[in-house]
């Protein structure tokens, strides 16, 4: 991306337009996930047939996936730090670690969904399940696109070579990734930890 030419453009706030834009998108996503979380909270006890949350949630697995996503956020800041300090090996390594963390998280989600469907909770079984799958599915889709984004950057790094340090773009990707992590922190608490409350 010939964004370096743009990076030099003076901005009123001193913040790159793309970084600014990502924060605005994050603001928007507060309302998106807010609606989904509220919808879940409203519907979690309204299922008439089929399993309830208390029947099927597995806090041990979910805690592990939370830990995994948190660690991927750590990898993300380390990747950005390396990129900003022009350390090519560390930049590529930590970016790969973020991607790995994301894929593992998606793996956990797949495992969990598979287990739930087997336990009798499909997408259309009851409104609790529908709300749960919509919320976590939306979050998982966000993770998937993040993985795709970062993978593209990693591949581009190998194509473009050792002099390509896309600090602004990686920071923007990082903001997205951290936000997705932060949403999961909220989901973990409100959906899983509060299941008996």
């Amino acid at each position, binding site marked *: 991306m010939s964004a370096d030419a743009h990076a030099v453009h003076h901005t009123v706030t001193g913040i790159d337009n793309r970084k600014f834009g990502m924060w*605005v998108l994050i603001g928007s996503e507060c309302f998106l996930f807010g609606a989904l979380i509220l919808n879940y909270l409203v519907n979690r006890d309204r299922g008439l047939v089929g399993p309830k949350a208390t029947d099927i949630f597995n806090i041990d697995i979910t805690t592990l996936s939370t830990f995994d996503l948190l660690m991927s956020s750590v990898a993300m800041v380390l990747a950005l730090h390396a990129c900003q300090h022009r350390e090519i090996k560390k930049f590529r390594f930590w970016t790969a670690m973020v991607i790995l963390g994301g894929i593992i998280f998606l793996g956990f989600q797949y495992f969990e969904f598979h287990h739930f469907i087997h336990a009798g909770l499909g997408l259309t079984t009851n409104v609790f399940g529908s709300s749960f799958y919509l919320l976590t599915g939306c979050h998982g889709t966000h993770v998937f696109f993040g993985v795709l984004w970062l993978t593209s950057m990693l591949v581009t790094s190998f194509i473009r070579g050792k002099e390509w340090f896309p600090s602004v773009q990686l920071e923007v990707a990082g903001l997205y990734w951290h936000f997705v992590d*932060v949403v999961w922190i909220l989901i973990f608490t409100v959906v899983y930890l509060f299941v008996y409350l």
Partner: protein
Amino acid sequence: MGENQHATVGLYWKFAAVLCFITFIEWGVFKNDTFRSNAKLMIPLLLGLSVVKFTMVCGWYMHLRYDSNILAKIFGFSLGLALLVYTIMHLAL
């Protein structure tokens, strides 16, 4: 891009450890019977812990602490308004 003087790699790892620790505590609270039977205790505690994690990731990993405060205002306003609107909706249901 020189704002990173405050946040070092060492700090990031320390935060990582704290985040893991908090998550472990949350898991422990969930499993513990004393808390399980006491919603008045469990809810604020777990919410509080998640707020701490949230603040750590937003403030340091997302760099809000060091960036121009317009970004924190944009995020804070969006988050605050969303909380307000959805709380009102929940109460109106």
